[in-house]
């Protein structure tokens, strides 16, 4: 349920639950973050005759949501969770060693040793690993960079500064979106919803512009997708820490109180060189490899074809 996932937001970056209004702002196509110039493969699909009208478009959108949409939603949720957990404690357990020879805090004191940028690079690498097409990777990074530029002025926060520093060439779009969502006051579920929503509204709008489709018909298609959007956002949160840690009713309260409290506990455990016990020792971020990784070869091919089309109107 939504409450199980989301209501820890009071422990996040804002004291008041501002998430709903922030979600609207974040998902609005009027957010000045460069999204209007991305078609998510729709332009190439139109060029190839794969999308010719509302029926084709509906199938395209449904497929996109079930694959790329779900993956970006899950990454956005994970990024939002990471941002929320590290907002007040940047050297929390997300900063722990990843097995690649990047040690965490050397034990010199709370929050002074671990590089807060490190978990962001790890999560960004998870996004990279889930994006097969180089053209899509580039488009995603451009969108992420533009979103971060915009979000840092609208919802300034240390976390967004850290992310910008961690991936200077531009974090992947869902990572930037999740971090921006947290800074805006959204919870992971809302971040996932924004990502899932954007994954279909961008292509839908592009199709309206490129084919001159009836905008009301296309919005009807989007409305028909509402249940699937809910499902995608929910599924996107399945791999988050709240589900990684077994959470019976008794533990719910602990989780809601927070991410950050857990963070401190785990952090000191790590700093003391003593592994924390049981499931709670499972570091945040350990679930990232299990995030959805659905592939959409058709979207990959569309992205690559689009890159080579000299007559394109959209960035992707």
């Amino acid at each position, binding site marked *: 349920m939504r409450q199980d996932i989301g209501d820890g937001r009071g422990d996040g970056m804002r004291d008041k639950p501002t998430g709903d209004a922030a979600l609207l702002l974040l998902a609005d196509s009027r957010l000045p973050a*460069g999204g209007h110039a991305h078609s998510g493969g729709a332009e190439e699909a139109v060029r190839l005759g794969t999308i010719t009208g509302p029926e084709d478009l509906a199938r395209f959108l449904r497929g996109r949501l079930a694959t790329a949409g779900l993956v970006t939603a899950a990454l956005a949720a994970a990024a939002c969770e990471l941002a929320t957990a590290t907002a007040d404690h940047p050297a929390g357990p997300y900063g722990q060693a990843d097995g690649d020879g990047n040690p965490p805090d050397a034990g010199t004191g709370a929050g002074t040793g671990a590089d807060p940028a490190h978990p962001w690079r790890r999560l960004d690498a998870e996004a990279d690993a889930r994006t097969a097409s180089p053209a899509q990777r580039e488009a995603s990074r451009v969108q992420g960079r533009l979103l971060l530029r915009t979000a840092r002025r609208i919802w300034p926060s240390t976390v967004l500064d850290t992310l910008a520093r961690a991936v200077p060439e531009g974090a992947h779009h869902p990572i930037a979106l999740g971090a921006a969502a947290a800074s805006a006051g959204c919870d992971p579920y809302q971040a996932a919803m924004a990502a899932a929503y954007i994954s279909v509204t961008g292509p839908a709008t592009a199709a309206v512009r490129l084919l001159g489709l009836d905008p009301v018909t296309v919005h009807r298609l989007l409305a028909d997708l509402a249940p699937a959007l809910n499902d995608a956002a929910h599924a996107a949160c399945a791999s988050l820490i709240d589900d990684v840690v077994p959470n019976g009713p008794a533990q719910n309260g602990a989780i809601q109180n927070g991410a950050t409290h857990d963070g401190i506990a785990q952090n000191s455990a790590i700093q003391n060189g003593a592994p924390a016990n049981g499931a709670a020792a499972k570091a945040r971020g350990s679930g990232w490899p299990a995030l959805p990784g659905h592939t959409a070869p058709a979207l990959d091919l569309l992205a690559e074809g689009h890159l080579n089309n*000299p007559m394109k109107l959209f960035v992707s």
Partner: protein
Amino acid sequence: MGAQHDDLHDAADPHGRALRLGIGGPVGSGKTALVAALCRSLGPSMRLGVVTNDIYTTEDAEFLRRAGVLDPERILAVQTGCCPHTAIRDDIAANLDAVETLEERFGPLDLVIVESGGDNLTATFSRGLADRQIFVLDVSGGDKVPRKGGPGVTMADLLVVNKTDLAPLVGADLTVMSRDAAAVRDGRPVLFTSLREDRSAHSVAEWVTSLVNTWKHANAHDHERTTPTTAA
């Protein structure tokens, strides 16, 4: 945690950066020709960068690169997703990113020109993107266009009416255009050009030079200045 070093330019803070000049106007009015002319005239004395916003990706950028008026690497193209005015007004993120990329790669620069995609009379540059803007019309669009107004015609810092050489051929009355433009522009300047005959756009280049000098002077001596907006 202390604040991180913030490497993000704030668009509202003009201090220490190049003047950003928007050039907008309808399709075919001569925007790209004007950009090429300005590069020809100003290139020898100024450090320039150019961002184009084409309908089709790189058409204008390629034209400028082939024209050989500027180091091709100093010309970046931005895609606008069928909505050229959105990219210069409502959502300027991609253009700002391109402008700052040029400044990072080649800076410090004196002037960055942002050429909009061909659009209609309602298009205008956001103040978050352009410090000053030129709107380019041409006489073959009809001598009634200045009277019709629109933000580009009425609010641009400079209105350029191009292709004066065609006036007799299309029956356009330059006097009417001049009078109508003056009536809606509240004293802001209007220049008539024929870029086909004057490939260096002499008068416009002079206006831009003066603008850049004023900008530099203001930035060097007036740190209080915070609003790079058009004077009323």
